[in-house]
């Protein structure tokens, strides 16, 4: 363990900006929504909001199951799942960055050559992670106390976030031990976090609403997800329910189990090795790999993006499977519950009373984000390629615009494939149950194309104009604007301008009889302008080699 202290200090020093950003994201979102909700919604409108949520499984899938109509309860149900996902991502990225990432970059070798003990890197990483997590959760706790929320509830929520964070950190470390590159490890850990979110969502969407629509008893799948354990503590529950920390005890065996696994693997693992070993491969490159029509290295880029695109595709198909299986179940539940039926009818004006359509659209919103992420990730990859392999690639007949174009084209294909996979899996699943919704599904997919185009262009613009900050800024723009679009309505009318900034706000409504496409055309025009500027800049600037 020699040197643990020094490594700990170095890790914390290296991460200070990360911690600040995550505190701003997590605690900032919590306080902003809390302030906005408190000001904009009185008891009665909160009751309406909760009834709406309880009546819409699609919304519960994305947000959570309500446990009362008090300010804290509404706050919790509308944000906790997102906060937990953010904390989980913070910790998986942290863990991979400090384990596999350091080994990839050769830093681990440098450090282990000095007078540090065999276990010092792991122990210092665990400690640094715990400290950073404690900072984020602590500030969130302080914010809820300062804004006047119940102390027990605030503490339970902070503990739930911390529990999710620790489990996520261990998952990240495991991924780093199992996968040979940090890219693969981050991808795998992200999929696990995504599963936590959706498994919890399924449990909530299949939940049993109370007769007065003020609370929903989640179904059993919620117990499969650490985010679900946190949600089940119901930190701000109203009568007759009570806040209950017991579900949080599930974190203890989970942490012990994962921790033991990490330690056991680490004890056997040599520096730089992974559980999934690198096999020997082909001794020669295929013609496809070197294919570069018009100076666009499509073969190479395709090969580099293959694994990531497949993963996105599986995510799209998985969400489609959820949608296809859940939609009919939900309309049945609705038919059996007259109170729910009435609520949905009063909402009728907005979605035409088509609960299943609303549910599918809510999920399609997620698919829109996944498709945009798949495309943008492929384009942002160019920045890494330029820095790591620019000297090799740009000394060949590859043209710069061709290089950018190959990433854009393959990103666009990945996005389209995600949308298509969702549509086909959902549609086929519904059709198997004797329900034809193909036209509606394709229209849902179509309305999301402008969003995909915008984020492809955003990725290209970042690579061309801001190559040194691009890695995280793109994701902030995607996730941040998604959250803005989702949460700005909760903040009241004064914040409408913020909502208007989000491209999500301008998508056409696929359920409308005659959708308004004006916003979509504007988005496409903006994307085209951004792309043109990006291509010009990428050609004119120095390569980052």
């Amino acid at each position, binding site marked *: 363990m020699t040197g643990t202290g020094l490594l700990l200090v170095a890790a914390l020093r290296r991460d200070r900006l990360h911690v600040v950003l995550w505190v701003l994201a997590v605690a900032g979102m919590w306080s902003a929504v809390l302030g906005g909700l408190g000001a904009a919604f009185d008891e009665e409108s909160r009751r309406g909001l909760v009834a709406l949520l309880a009546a819409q499984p699609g919304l519960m899938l994305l947000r959570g199951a309500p446990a009362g109509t008090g300010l804290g309860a509404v706050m919790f149900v509308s944000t906790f799942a997102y906060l937990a996902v953010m904390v989980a991502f913070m910790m998986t990225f942290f863990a991979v960055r400090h384990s596999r990432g350091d080994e990839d970059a050769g830093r681990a070798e440098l450090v282990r050559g000095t007078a540090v003990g065999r276990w010092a890197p792991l122990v210092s990483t665990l400690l640094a992670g715990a400290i950073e997590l404690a900072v984020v959760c602590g500030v969130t706790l302080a914010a809820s106390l300062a804004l006047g929320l119940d102390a027990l509830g605030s503490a339970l929520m902070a503990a739930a976030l911390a529990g999710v964070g620790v489990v996520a950190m261990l998952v990240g470390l495991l991924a780093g031990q199992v996968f040979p590159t940090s890219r693969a490890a981050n991808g795998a850990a992200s999929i696990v976090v995504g599963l936590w979110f959706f498994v919890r969502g399924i449990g909530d969407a299949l939940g049993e609403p109370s007769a007065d629509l003020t609370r929903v008893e989640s179904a059993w799948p919620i117990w499969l997800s650490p985010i679900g354990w946190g949600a089940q503590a119901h930190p701000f529950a109203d009568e007759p329910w009570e806040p209950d920390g017991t579900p949080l005890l599930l974190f203890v065996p989970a942490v012990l189990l994962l921790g033991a696994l990490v330690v056991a693997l680490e004890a056997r693992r040599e520096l730089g090795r992974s559980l999934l070993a690198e096999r020997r491969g*082909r001794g020669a490159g295929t013609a496809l790999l*070197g294919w570069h029509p018009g100076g666009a290295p499509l073969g190479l880029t395709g090969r580099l993006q293959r*694994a990531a695109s497949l993963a996105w595709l599986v995510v799209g198909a998985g969400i489609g499977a959820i949608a296809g299986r859940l939609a009919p179940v939900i309309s049945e539940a609705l038919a059996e519950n007259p109170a729910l039926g009435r609520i949905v009818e009063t909402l009728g004006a907005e979605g035409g009373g088509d609960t299943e359509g609303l549910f599918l659209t809510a999920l399609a919103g997620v698919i829109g984000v996944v498709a945009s992420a798949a495309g943008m990730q492929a384009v942002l990859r160019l920045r890494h390629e330029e820095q790591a392999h620019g000297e*090799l690639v740009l*000394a*060949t007949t590859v043209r710069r615009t061709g290089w950018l174009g190959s990433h854009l084209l393959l990103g666009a294909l990945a996005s389209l494939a995600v949308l298509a996979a969702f549509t086909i899996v959902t549609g086929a699943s519904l059709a198997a149950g004797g329900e034809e919704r193909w036209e509606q599904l394709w229209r849902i997919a179509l309305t999301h194309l402008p969003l995909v185009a915008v984020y492809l262009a955003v990725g290209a613009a970042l690579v061309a104009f801001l190559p040194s900050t691009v890695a995280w800024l793109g994701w902030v723009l995607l996730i941040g604007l998604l959250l803005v679009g989702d949460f700005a309505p909760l903040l009241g009318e004064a914040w409408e301008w913020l909502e208007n900034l989000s491209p999500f706000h301008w998508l056409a409504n696929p359920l409308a009889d005659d959708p308004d496409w004006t916003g979509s055309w504007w988005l496409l025009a903006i994307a085209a302008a951004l792309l043109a500027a990006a291509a010009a800049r990428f050609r004119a600037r120095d390569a980052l080699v």
Partner: protein
Amino acid sequence: MADRVIETSGLDKRFGRVQALDGLDLVVEQGAVHGFLGPNGAGKSTTIRVLLGMLRASGGEARVLGMDPWRDAVAIHRRAAYVPGDVTLWPGLTGGEAIDTITRLRGHRAPASDRARLIEAFDLDPRRRSKTYSKGNRQKIALIAAFASEADLYILDEPTSGLDPLMESVFQAEIRRVADRGATVLLSSHILSEVERLCSTVSIIRDGRIVEAGTLEQLRHLHHTVVAYRGPAPEGLPLADVSVDGEHVRASVAAEHMPEVLRWLGDRGAQAVTLTPPSLEELFLRHYGDEARVDSARAERAKGQRHADETGLADGPDADGSEAADAPAVAPSSADVDDVHGRHAR
């Protein structure tokens, strides 16, 4: 006059406030194996990246194979092969895949004609994933990709820094092979013996400027020969770096003073006379030494008065003490010599 494959005049490159290239004039003739020497941070890699169109010059002119490196980058790349100093490969690709991909991206057919022979000669296992290759093996892959198919111009940025001596000799054989074929080579290197063995012409870069250029013979002529003998201490001779230890005398002589010194030695009956021609290393160290002085002077300015004393102490006697103390009045200071020679060479 032979064709000039690379020609730059007054090439400037600024990164923000840093002047990386400062009026660089580099000329490489058709068919030459041209050594490109300079201390770390002198601008070697920046020059190469401008020549390959990866960076855009801030000022001045550059022609590579008769074309503009920024505008016609792709056309140049069709005829040039490049080995970067720090080779990072795609972790998921095998070595063999990387070689063939680079070959195809350069517009050639894969497998290239010499691929199998080079893999054998460099003793590379092409089926391993790139992530598992050592630095030397990664360099081999870039070298094989460069040499496997023909090019008119080879640009190599410190290509042997990770190779073992055996592989280095394979590398040197390849350089000779392409040079015999008539190709031009620009070889940036730190390994002076390698440059001395391979290169017909040399440019030395310092602070973004070429300070010496010419054939090795020209450069040697311009520099002092070391003379050692047993006999009387020298008097009234244009010598530098004189050291006298009893009867044993060592000093350095500028080329133009050699006849005079030899006459004097003959007249005085000096014994055991040895004349050592200057090695590239001495030539190079001269610039490293200057670099050290320039650096410390800069550091001093930057740090201001606070540390002025310490720096003065640190580099004073050691860096240039011998010349300052021993050089007779006749010998010009080394900085002047460099300047004069630099102009000669150009």
